[in-house]
């Protein structure tokens, strides 16, 4: 049990007064960053990176520096859920799936329950992922090496297909929304030829459509337009303002242990591969809807619908640090910035980091346990405070939301053009909802579209155009088959039902 001994040493390193203080500072900053749409965890960590530079020069300072930065990351993971639940505006990409059931819960006056469920499952997801990191890191690191372009594409395909096959909306509406998302994701630089495409000669379209701007517009502005139409009432006004919601939710949560475990497994897999927290949250939501007893009620305000994506997102976000530490491949944008930090501090991530920088690695792993406990305490005590925001009259809060959305959209690229794009997406979001087209597949396609395209084309380049590459070994073959099975699941169920009847 070498790991346990190393871990105890790690706790000894992480448990100093300075480090604990840094943990709380990091968590609070991270929550704020997570709440503000646009200012993502990656930006937040990047801004603070130079500050840690002198910190890392002192003995043991590298551990303190990574504790501060990683706690910002945990905080952002926690914080992303807050605005998703309260206002239907995801603060971070991975909390889009949290809006599906979180927002309806808030509208029913159960915002406190939804927040508690989100925070607690985030914590559970992170905890399971840290345990996996603690004991299985060497095995898992070598598993990630199996992933070439074809394998990556099959994972993205699985995410898309899981969404189509398990969605409640008519499959064709889902596919239509998804295709629009792919088209938007294609704007900008072609990943294989390096040339510009679909920019119509406009230099403004060089950057393509940023996912965050689409989300802020589609969800945030779109939601406000809808509420305006329905008469300026906020439905969540009856939210309770005490910690009783926390206790009530905790009594309910053990019921969903199977969903939690499944979501954590999906999350760890996606984090390690590394596919990222966003596909993990979508996939886990889809899977939970399929397998849950109350699957039909998903989308109307089910606690289970909050548990699934939050557990997976946090598990993926946490386990994404493993490929970063052992292979130097970041599993998320934030992990990419942390990786840059490690290199600046003079640490070389890779297989030898665990051998040569034992104190650093185990201090970091210990801080993952402690940081998430600190995070849970911080956010849970704030639940009544967050829920109280819903008591503010809509006529006051709506302009504030619009201002925050506009600032968020501006922050992404420091461009006013993006604020106008946000408004356009807002109007589009309003019409999507009026015509009952789902927004989520559109968003999913914008987030993963270019990555899926790049890995598809890399795989096809390598195989000289042979599509057989997606079935060329057991790993990629089974993921692709599973994806295709899920895609045609609605058809299969339909045919089976007809056969049984006939």
């Amino acid at each position: 049990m070498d790991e346990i001994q190393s871990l105890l040493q790690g706790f000894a390193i992480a448990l100093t007064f300075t480090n604990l203080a840094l943990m709380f500072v990091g968590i609070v900053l991270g929550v704020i960053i997570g709440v503000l749409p646009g200012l993502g965890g990656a930006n937040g960590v990047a801004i603070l990176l130079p500050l840690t530079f002198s910190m890392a020069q002192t003995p043991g300072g590298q551990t303190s520096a990574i504790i501060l930065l990683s706690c910002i990351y945990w905080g952002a993971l926690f914080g992303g859920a807050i605005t998703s639940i309260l206002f239907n505006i995801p603060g971070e990409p991975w909390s889009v799936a949290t809006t599906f059931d979180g927002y309806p819960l808030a509208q029913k006056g159960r915002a406190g329950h939804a927040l508690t469920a989100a925070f607690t499952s985030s914590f559970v997801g992170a905890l399971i992922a840290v345990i996996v990191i603690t004991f299985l890191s060497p095995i898992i690191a070598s598993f990630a090496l199996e992933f070439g372009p074809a394998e990556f594409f099959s994972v993205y395909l699985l995410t898309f297909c899981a969404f189509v096959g398990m969605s409640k909306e008519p499959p064709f509406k889902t596919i239509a929304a998804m295709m629009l998302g792919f088209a938007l994701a294609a704007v900008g630089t072609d990943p294989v030829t390096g040339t510009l495409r679909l920019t119509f000669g406009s230099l403004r379209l060089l950057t393509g459509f940023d996912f965050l701007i689409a989300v802020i517009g589609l969800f945030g502005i779109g939601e406000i337009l809808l509420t305006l139409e329905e008469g300026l009432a906020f439905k969540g006004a009856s939210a309770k303002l005490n910690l009783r919601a926390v206790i009530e939710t905790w009594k309910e949560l053990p019921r969903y242990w199977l969903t939690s475990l499944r979501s954590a497994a999906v999350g760890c897999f996606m984090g390690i591969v590394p596919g990222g927290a966003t596909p993990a949250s979508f996939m886990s939501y889809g899977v939970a809807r399929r397998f849950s007893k109350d699957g039909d009620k998903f989308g109307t305000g089910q606690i289970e619908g909050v548990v699934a994506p939050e557990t997976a997102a946090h598990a993926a976000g946490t386990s994404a640090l493993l490929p970063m530490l052992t292979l130097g491949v970041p599993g998320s944008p934030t992990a990419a910035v942390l990786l840059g930090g490690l290199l600046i501090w003079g640490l070389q991530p890779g297989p030898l980091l665990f051998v040569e920088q034992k104190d650093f690695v185990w201090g970091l792993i210990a801080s993952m346990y402690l940081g998430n406990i600190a995070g849970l305490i911080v956010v849970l005590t704030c639940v009544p405070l967050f829920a109280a925001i819903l008591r503010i009259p809509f006529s006051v809060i709506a302009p504030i939301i619009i201002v925050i959305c506009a600032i968020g959209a501006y922050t992404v690229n420091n461009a006013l053009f993006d604020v106008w794009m946000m408004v356009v997406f807002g109007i589009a979001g309003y019409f999507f909802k009026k015509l009952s087209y789902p927004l989520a597949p559109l968003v999913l396609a914008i987030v993963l579209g270019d990555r899926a395209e790049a890995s598809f084309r890399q795989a096809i380049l390598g195989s000289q155009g042979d599509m057989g590459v997606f079935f060329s070994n057991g790993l990629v073959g089974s993921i692709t088959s599973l994806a295709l099975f899920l895609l045609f699941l609605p058809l299969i169920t339909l045919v089976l039902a007809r056969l049984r009847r006939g």
Partner: protein
Amino acid sequence: MKTSFDRIVRAALAAAVVAIWPLSGQAWEPSKTVEFIVPAGTGGGADQMARAIQGIVAKHNLMKESMVVVNRSGGSGAEGFLDVKGSEGNPHKIIITLSNLFTTPLATGVPFNWRDLTPVKMMALDNFVLWVNAETPYKTPKEYVAAVKKAGAKNMKMGGTGAKQEDQIITAAIEQLTGAKWTYIPIKGGGAVAVQLVGKHIDSSVNNPIEAVAHWRGGKLRPLCVFNDNRMPYEEKLTGDLSWNSIPTCKQAGLDVSYMMLRGIFMPGGVTADQVQYYVGVLRKVQETPEWKDLMAKGAFDTTSLEGKEYADWVAREEARHVTLMKGAGFIAGQ
């Protein structure tokens, strides 16, 4: 006579541009926060260097005003370059460049050129090393290239970061010289390229030293040669008896290709000599810090550093070379 006249005109211009700054014969200094543009995403090599410079400047109090790093990576960095091009005369903006200074306008046709900017200082050159998986039998670039020729492009994959950027240009340079052909696979991020090579999803890479060193030391990758005219000077033992210095240059090993990537600082056009000189001074001080030296050693950088006319001449030569290489490979937009 002409130079002193020139100086007077420039000083007058500076006074006009920075009206709030009293013309008291003092050297120019920034009067507000300086924006440090990175024409690439967060976490990459250029971003790391920019943030390291920012950290060193803050730690050693090298500037009175603060410096803030802004990533503008759209269109392979075109977004960042266009921003600086459009900020003519603004002395509170600097940009760090990588090879996309040349490759992006050539490959995409986006209208900018390094002559739209003012060269400040070359900070270092980034080295490229030819890597293969340690389980393959190739010990020299000659052996490897011969094997590629025999196997053909269908069966040999070169992985690299980005499309029509430095990694693919080096690949094209080797192809043009030797007649060997690869299927080039563009992958996002140097770290990911190295891991794809460890996982044998590609056959070779031209990763920067820092991107692949961990896998070399872990016994998974083997360096064949460095695309530099001189061996890397770092003699610290990394794996067994080997150091960066043990890797032969490609030329020594019989593959006459040399390529280094510019890590240089530019300002917008239309700034005064005083303003340029100010940043040159700050950056010189950055280079003297132990943190900078440490960064150079960790990344096995080539520490060549040029300023003024020498720097501009170097950039011009390098641009011409990129045009030739990219023309030969058919990488130029509308070609």
